[in-house]
């Protein structure tokens, strides 16, 4: 318990991380309480009052169908966080499994898996994402799967090294001698070791996942209408950028704030994890 409270104190002292955490918390609360906070139904159209600038009844204006932008941004938080969380989770699970399996088994399995990982990693994330999204199609679930697949190789590589290292350690070989099963070794010894690093990476990549959703939506490959996501809001807003900039600006700002928050937390966690870097 003592080690934990020490870590907590360090975290609290790291200003960046704290600010980031607070921001992330606000975003999270917005997402959770969307139902309560949002003044209008995000899907309700009012086409006779379309493209109105921010005013009292519509704090952030209305979009091309007369829907309230504020409500859509608020509900968009839910989608963005959901996509962010689950795609990272999927990538983490998939990737860690691959990495640990490769590192632990060694030999042919190792080579095959890690070669595939190398191949997948060699591509720019966005381009792989575009290709996979084009194949799988649009939709929330498919988008999560797409981004998860794109992230998996990175987690695989991250899990691979430590797995190899731990495998060589004495207590593992002695455990094997006693007859402990592979699964036990993995869960008892290997996973706890890589857990920290993976968690830090996971947090950082929430931000990347949210950016990925925005980019894919911008290219028209994301979530289907009429569901509001920050990415597809920017996309529709761009057509009317000069006359109705609020349509793109507010979701864009939301992406910035959210991704920034996660990056700040990630930075803070990294500072904690690696004491040498503590400023």
């Amino acid at each position, binding site marked *: 318990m003592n080690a934990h409270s020490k870590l907590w104190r360090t975290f609290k002292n790291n200003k960046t991380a704290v600010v980031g955490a607070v921001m992330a918390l606000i975003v999270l609360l917005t997402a959770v309480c969307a139902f309560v906070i949002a003044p209008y139904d995000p899907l309700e159209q009012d086409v006779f009052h379309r493209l109105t600038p921010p005013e009292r009844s519509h704090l952030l204006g209305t979009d091309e169908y007369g829907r309230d932008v504020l409500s859509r941004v608020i509900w968009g938080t839910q989608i963005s966080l959901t996509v962010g969380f689950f795609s990272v989770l999927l990538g983490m699970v998939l990737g860690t499994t691959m990495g640990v399996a490769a590192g632990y088994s060694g030999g042919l399995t190792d080579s095959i898996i890690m070669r595939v990982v190398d191949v997948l990693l060699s591509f720019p994330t966005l381009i792989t994402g575009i290709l996979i999204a084009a194949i799988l199609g649009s939709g929330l679930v498919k988008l999560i799967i797409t981004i998860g697949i794109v992230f998996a190789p990175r987690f695989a590589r991250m899990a691979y090294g430590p797995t190899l290292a731990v495998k060589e350690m004495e207590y593992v070989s002695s455990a094997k001698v006693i007859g402990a099963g592979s699964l036990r070794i993995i869960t008892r010894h290997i996973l706890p070791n890589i857990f920290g690093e993976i968690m830090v990476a996971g947090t950082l990549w929430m931000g990347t996942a949210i950016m990925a959703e925005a980019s894919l939506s911008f290219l028209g490959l994301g979530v289907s209408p009429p569901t509001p996501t920050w990415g597809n809001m920017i996309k529709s807003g*761009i057509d009317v950028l000069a006359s109705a900039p609020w349509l793109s600006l507010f979701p864009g700002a939301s992406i910035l704030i959210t991704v920034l928050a996660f990056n700040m937390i990630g930075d803070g966690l990294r500072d904690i994890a690696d004491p040498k870097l503590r400023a």
Partner: protein
Amino acid sequence: MKQQMRLITTKLAMVLAACVLMISLSFNYALSAGDQVLRMANKYGDAKSLDAHRATGSQDRLIVDLVFNGLVCYQPGNLSVDAIIPDLATEIPSSKVLDDGRQQWVFKLRQGVMTHPYDGNPGYELTSEDVVYSLQRAADPKRSSFAVDYSGMTFEATDKYTVQVTLDQPISAFLFLPKFANRGGGLIVAKKALEDKGDDWFKTHPVGTGPFVFKEYIPGEKVVLTRFDKYYKGTPKLDGVEWYYMPSDSSRELALQKGELQVIEGPKEQAWAEKVASYPGVVVDSPNSAETIIAHFNMTVKPLDQLKVRQAIAYAISRKEFVAVYGPKVSSPIYGVAPVGRMIAGLSREEAAKENLVFEQDLAKSKSLLAEAGYPNGFSLEVFTSESATYRRAYELLQAQLRKIGIDIKLSVVDHSTFHARIRQNLDPIVFYAAMRPNPDVILTQFYLSDSIVVTGKKAITNFSHIGEVDADGDGQIDSLDDLIVRARLEQDSTKQVALWKEAQLELLRKMVSYPVIAIGYIFARSPKVDWGYEMITITDGPNPTEKTRLLP
């Protein structure tokens, strides 16, 4: 050391900034070119085919319409069939019925019309040999996308400047002439170019007789055309025309503002038109067109097989909202599949009202019909839309409107090609289709003839509703419009023909096969220096410069 590094970096930054500023300043003067080249931009990403007989998409038609002529042509800026004038032919032909019942038209060609020069040939005189070759090619389904329009026709060159067209079944001039006008299969291609170079080459190197010669095609960027000095109507005033592909509305807009382009296509949105019209030095044109947006109900998908369900949907749709979103200047409601006021035999509101077939939005009625049909709580449907704004808007409006009566539409966005592939595979329950067709016969044939039913039809085109094959009104009998359509086509008396077309449209409404929503026009913005040389009343795919178009100084 830190100071030195800092100094270096700052110096570098200043130099960089200075260079850039100088470059941009010098450039802004260089850019205002004083040439007579008309630069236009449309919203498409790229050309698909510059082959006259394969150019079905608007982005391709914009180009081929400048490179080729037809035997007859529409007057520039006026798509009315009554206004068709001779083009490569010397006069509008009249028809003759032969002894065996077939119908014959004879075209006399102008003499001395030259084709464009192309790789290895300085251009030659167009004769009936080229015309017959071209028409036969247009009629060949393996080489042309317009073959359907020419079935049952034979072509013969009776002498160097005479072409004879014989039809198995007589049709009226109103239906005949558009097939030989300067659109689609009627565009005349240069036979020698095709024989020398082949179809593949022709896809990206069109060779015709029109006012502008194809010079260069840069994929994804632009098509460059130059003046054809030997154009038979006279040397064009412009030096050349460049059509740019720019999918981004804002890029197009900015380029127009900065003078990089003189004409741009705009999104079909009144708000945009109003905004752009307020910029200094920009003129906005919104000519009419006969493009319609119609919702087709696939009657093989439950519960759309029930008449009451389709009527319920019809009563939930609000044409007013569609007009509001597309813009009152750009769109207007239509009440029959032939757009009223923009096409002959267009069904008017009064005519539809006589039988109570207007289907104005009435949510209460809609809900009760739905309940009567056995779906008091609505149901859900999976529908796909194209990402193209025109379609997406229609589907999103429909989604919101049907939500009010409990029908939940799950919408997926796919790219435009996938969309067109899907709907032709009979995979969608409700299909919005935005299209322009020259006359009611083409509309009825392509969308409502049983042969045209998607996938299973003999000549499957775009009959999404399956009318002609299903029982539309639940009386136990298959309902079909085939008889009516064919009778109207062959009717020689134009008054009776119009009446038959109107009856067909009413029948479609009685059986609620499809819901005609709106007709939309075009919006494009231009520099006031563009003098088209003619008055633009109705256009098809976009503004077309002619030999008379010029840029004012």
